[in-house]
């Protein structure tokens, strides 16, 4: 792989990693929000 090609691959990997990081962050926020809602409303965490 030439340095130019390696650069293109790295750029693609970086772009994917950024999107994955954002999605994981959003998932953590969502799970936190779900937990707060369930605890506040007294809903059993596993099943209504």
């Amino acid at each position, binding site marked *: *792989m*030439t340095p*130019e*090609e390696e650069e*293109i*691959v790295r750029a*693609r*990997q970086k*772009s*994917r990693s950024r*999107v*994955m990081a954002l999605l994981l962050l959003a998932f953590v926020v*969502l799970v936190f*929000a*779900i937990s*707060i*809602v369930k605890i506040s*409303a007294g809903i059993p*965490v*596993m*099943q*209504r």
Partner: protein
Amino acid sequence: MSVANHALILPADWRDFLALTKPRVMTLVVFTGLCGMLAAPAPIHPVLGFTAILCIALGAGAAGALNQWYEADLDSKMKRTQSRPLPAGRMDRQSALHFGVGVAALSVILMGLAVNYVAAGILLLSILFYVLVYTVWLKRRTPQNIVIGGAAGAFPPLIGWAAATGDVALLPVLLFGLVFLWTPPHFWALALFVKTDYANAGVPMLPVVAGEKATRIQIGLYTIPMAIAAIAPWPLGLTGALYGVTAVVTTALFAIFAVQVATRMAGEGDTMKPEKRLFAYSISYLFILFAAVAADRWLA
């Protein structure tokens, strides 16, 4: 070694994974799921409601990805689908399979843990139905493929309702029936003007196998039970006049367009305007009806 001497295999872009989920199809799925939830008599906390709709979207996206994983060979033969990530060579099949299975599992588990097990069970059923019954079993074997397979697209209002109430009632079942019976006229109208594409791919779509005339008759015939399912919630007392009047007017227009398609034959160089009009209207029709069923619960 120069770039010209070998093919550079890039990891798939995140946009290709997004394309794998068929975002345009997802909008209708999300909308009908949301309306099913809003039409339910039990309120749901906005965070849990958002989670349920997210799970429906993820489930639909996963089913779309697994469909594209299995049908990469078919997609490469049709103009409409040639530019998808797999046939265009922008992604390897294994990545699509892993993505589809992973997102499907995530959607069902999250729905079960965060919302309820009834909604999660129906979501799982809808994914399996779309992938196994429609994509793997029926699509390449019978011209009735989209009739049975259409059920997969009819599940979202049931899931939305179940997410809010934890059970299933007659109204969401009728909404399921509406989408199920709407699918054949909607899809066969499309198949009439992209017939050559399906024929090239060897997919036994009704116009390819049974001919144009039989397809047109079937469009007309399926419109009858679809109209009954659309209007029934009103006389049954499940909705008010807001939905009832909307259903009667929009269904009458659907029936007029369907009859126009059912009673004509395309000549040489035909632009297929009535078929394209029915296809385009059928999408708006479903959006209007589902918006009306939700509005009826909240405004009436």
